Structure formats: C-alpha cells, structure tokens
C-alpha cells in the first residue's frame, strides 16, 4: 500500500454531506420550527456562539470518559485474566458480572451520586467505568480460555514461565478480541459519562450544556450538543481503531 487511499476518505465525507442535505431538505419541506426539529443550518450559529463552551465541555466529557475507560481496561483485563486462566473463578464470577451488567446504569447513577455526594469527577468516572468494563473482561476471558493447548505447549515444553507464555503468546493472541471489545467499551464509557452529566447534573461536560439548552429552550443548542457528542464519539472510536491497527493489525484480513 502506497500513498493515501482517497476513496476511503472521500466516501464517508460524501455520505455525511448527503445525510445533512437530506436532513436540511426534510425540515425545510415540512416547515418545522426549530423547537420541533432544528435543521443543520440552524446548528452552526449555535455552535459558533457557544464555541468556547463547546470546547471546554467537550474536554470535560472527554477526560472523564478516558479515565473511566482506562479503569475499564485495567480492571476488565485483570478480571478477564482471572476468569480466563482459572475455570473455577470463571464459574464463580461470570453470573455476578452478567447480573451486574444487566442493571440499567440510569438507576445506578443516583445511587452513586448519593454514595459519594459532591464527588462529581469520581462519580462520573465511576459510572463510565462500570458501564464499560464488562465487554473487556468477557473478551479477555474468552480469548485466554480458548487458547489451544498446543500454543502453550510449544513454550511450556521448553520450561518457559507462565508469565513468559502469557506475554509472548496468550496476550498477543487475545489482542484482536480485546480491541473488538474496546470499540464497544469506548462508546459505552462515553454514554456513561453523559448519563451522569444529565441525570445527576454537576454543571460540567456536554451533558450539562445540553441541560442548559433545555432549560433555556434553546433547541438549536440542544441539537448542536447532540452533533458534538456524535463527533466526539467518532473521534474516540477511531482512536481505538488506530491503536488496533498498530497493535493487532496482523489480525486484519488482507485483500487477496
């Protein structure tokens, strides 16, 4: 592969432009006022007017999401390792995790907010973490437990330590599954952060900007926040994609 693959860049941009054009045309055709449905052309002024607020709040949302996701990666990987390497721990932990994951996090937010009153940063990070570690734990556990014994044996028969086997074989072999889960987790963590910002408002982050838009009946602002959230989500997702390319690019199917 040499140079830039223009088709890969132009196609999605074109798709977005077409999407916005249809949206604009539809609102115009229906003659909707902005409090029913804002059109893309209404959003830009909102963006521009509140550009510093957008920047500031995007950063607030972003860093809490990243810290929550970082926690997920650490705790999820550790849990996955424990479950993947020990049959008994897997049997013990699996139902607990499934049950925990099944609880709607919207119900957890007020509880967390009550438990740690005023600890807004901590609460937000905690919810972002709680909502996103499950896929990581499960994928790492499955990746490790489905490792064919021969893979272990080629090194174990040479007297390699458990750590060496984990480091040289089990870990890299699990990376594709890990990144698959991370793509899900990054979006979940992002949702978790926003959930706290909206359900237990603490005045920071894009969720709070959305809330102030609602209170001020500034509909274009609310829609603009949604777009900003989508953009931030895309940004986070593609960061994971880039990391995946770097660390697990070998697992990609090559064009033949």
């Amino acid at each position, binding site marked *: 592969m040499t140079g830039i693959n223009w088709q890969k860049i132009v196609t999605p941009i074109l798709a977005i432009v077409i999407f916005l054009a249809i949206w604009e045309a539809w609102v115009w055709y229906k003659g909707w006022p902005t409090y029913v449905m804002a059109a893309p052309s209404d959003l830009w002024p909102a963006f521009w007017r509140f550009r510093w607020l957008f920047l500031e709040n995007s950063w607030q949302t972003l860093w809490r999401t990243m810290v929550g996701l970082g926690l997920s990666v650490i705790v999820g990987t550790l849990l996955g390792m424990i479950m993947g390497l020990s049959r008994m721990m897997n049997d013990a932990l699996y139902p607990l995790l499934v049950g925990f994951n099944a609880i709607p996090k919207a119900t957890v937010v007020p509880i967390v907010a009550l438990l740690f009153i005023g600890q807004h940063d901590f609460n937000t990070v905690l919810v972002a973490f709680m909502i996103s570690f499950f896929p990581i734990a499960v994928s790492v556990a499955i990746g490790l437990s489905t490792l*064919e014994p*021969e*893979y272990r*044996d*080629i*090194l*174990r*028969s*040479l*007297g*390699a330590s458990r750590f*060496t086997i984990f480091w*040289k*074989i089990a870990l*890299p*072999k699990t*990376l594709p599954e890990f990144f698959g889960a991370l793509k899900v987790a990054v979006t979940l963590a992002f949702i978790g952060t926003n959930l706290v910002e909206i359900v237990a408002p603490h005045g920071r982050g894009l969720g709070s900007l959305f809330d102030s838009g609602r209170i001020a009946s500034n509909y274009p602002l609310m829609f603009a926040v949604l777009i900003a959230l989508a953009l931030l989500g895309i940004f986070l997702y593609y960061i994971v994609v880039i990391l995946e390319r770097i660390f*697990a690019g*070998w*697992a990609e199917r*090559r064009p033949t």
Partner: protein
Amino acid sequence: MTDLIAIKGVTHAYQTDAGPLPVLDNLNLSVPEGRFCAVVGPSGCGKSTLTRLIAGLMFPDKGEVWLHGELVKSPRKTVGMAFQNPVLLEWRTILQNVILPLEIVAPSMPKAKKEARARELLSLVGLEGFEDKRPSELSGGMRQRASLCRSIVHKPDVLILDEPFGALDAFTREDLWQLMHQLRAEEPFTALLITHDLRESVYLADQVVVMSGRPGTTQYVLNIDLPSPRPIDMLYSAQSVEWLATLRKQIEVAQGRTPEKEAQA
C-alpha cells in the same frame, strides 16, 4: 549406544467427571540415541499423552520417563515439539516464529545469530524468500515446514512429533517425509513420531512401536534395519510390503478386531 528416551512401566489415568480414565498401562519403550522411533496405535490409545509425558508437561501416576539418563521431573530445554496443527503465531513473521524457542532457551544469544540460525534452517526446508511472510500467507505444507524448523532451531536432542503430517495432502506429505530424512542427516536428533499412517512409519522410522487400544501399552515392536535417507520407492519393496502387512495386523489386534493369537498365526 545409550537409550536417549526410556519409558519404564508408565501407567497413567486422567481424572474425569466420570471417574478415572486409564490411558496408559505399563508402557515400556526405549529409543537409542540418534534413532527414529514411530508410534502407531488406535485413536485415543494415549499417544499424545505419551508425548506430553516425555516432554515433561505432565507426569505419570506410575513408572518413570528418562531422557538422556535423567529422570524427567520438569520440562527441559533440549526437547523440540511439533504437532498436527503447526501453531504458528500469526503476529510474527515466519522468521520470528522460528526464532521463538531461542528466545526462551538462549535469551542472551545475539539477535543476528538467532536470525542467522533460523535463516539457515528455513533455506534447508525450502522456505528461502518466505522469511518475512506471515503464516497466513503460506500453504499448509509450508507452514508445517516452518513449524519443523521451529521445533529444531534450538538443536534439541529429542524431537517429539505428534502427527505433524496428518493434515496434509498425500503429495505434500511425501515431500515432507523426504525432508525429514534430510533434516536427520543435517541436524542429528533422536525422534519420536506419532502417526496413524503405517507407510509413514515404515519410511521414516528405525523402530515402529504398536500401542494397544486404551489403556495403551507396548503391543509390538518392529525394527526397520535400513539406513537413512531412504528412497521413497523402498515402500514398494517386498520387504516393506511384508512389514506393512505385519503392522496392519497388529493394528487390527490393537483395535480389538482380531484376537491376538490369530494375528500371530
């Protein structure tokens, strides 16, 4: 000549949910240094278990496994293994795959030296020019060649092969048989080959051991007194046909289809 591999009265059972499953029963086997031993037997008779015992990956309930005059109590760096599944690491190039055992056995060896050794072997098996390819870019036969290189890169004195050619097509398999003889000449080792192909055992081995059905024990030993390398058409000699017939009968006994007395008659 000393026995490099000596299995003495090995008995082993797996603990399963349905109680203990006896897999090996008083198995005896010895392979002198530099010899090539093939083990054949019905499926499930404990052949792979035997390889894991020799490699020190597990230990028998009863009996002893000796390698090089030492009782096997743990895995040793002087063993090489290859399986039916080549288990190459997809995130490494072929060259880096072959180097893997050296990273464990000789961590202080300079990288250039490791690579030189791997390249030497890869060209020996006809994989020159494929060093930087990924395993997925190679055919099944080529992957198995790379896997063989990996199993001998650290110059093991015992090579354990568990049906390495089992999944290959007939022509590729014969190519690799010939390659085995060539490797034997270039890189001396003592080998234990598990196979379900009687022709393979006769063509490659100096000694063919027939294991009984589960729980496996030494049922029959056939000596093939021919030098290595051997021309492939040795398989069509009258002597080979007779050996194959004998082994065939022994397998039927092992499978429980023919009573032992009848087979000897």
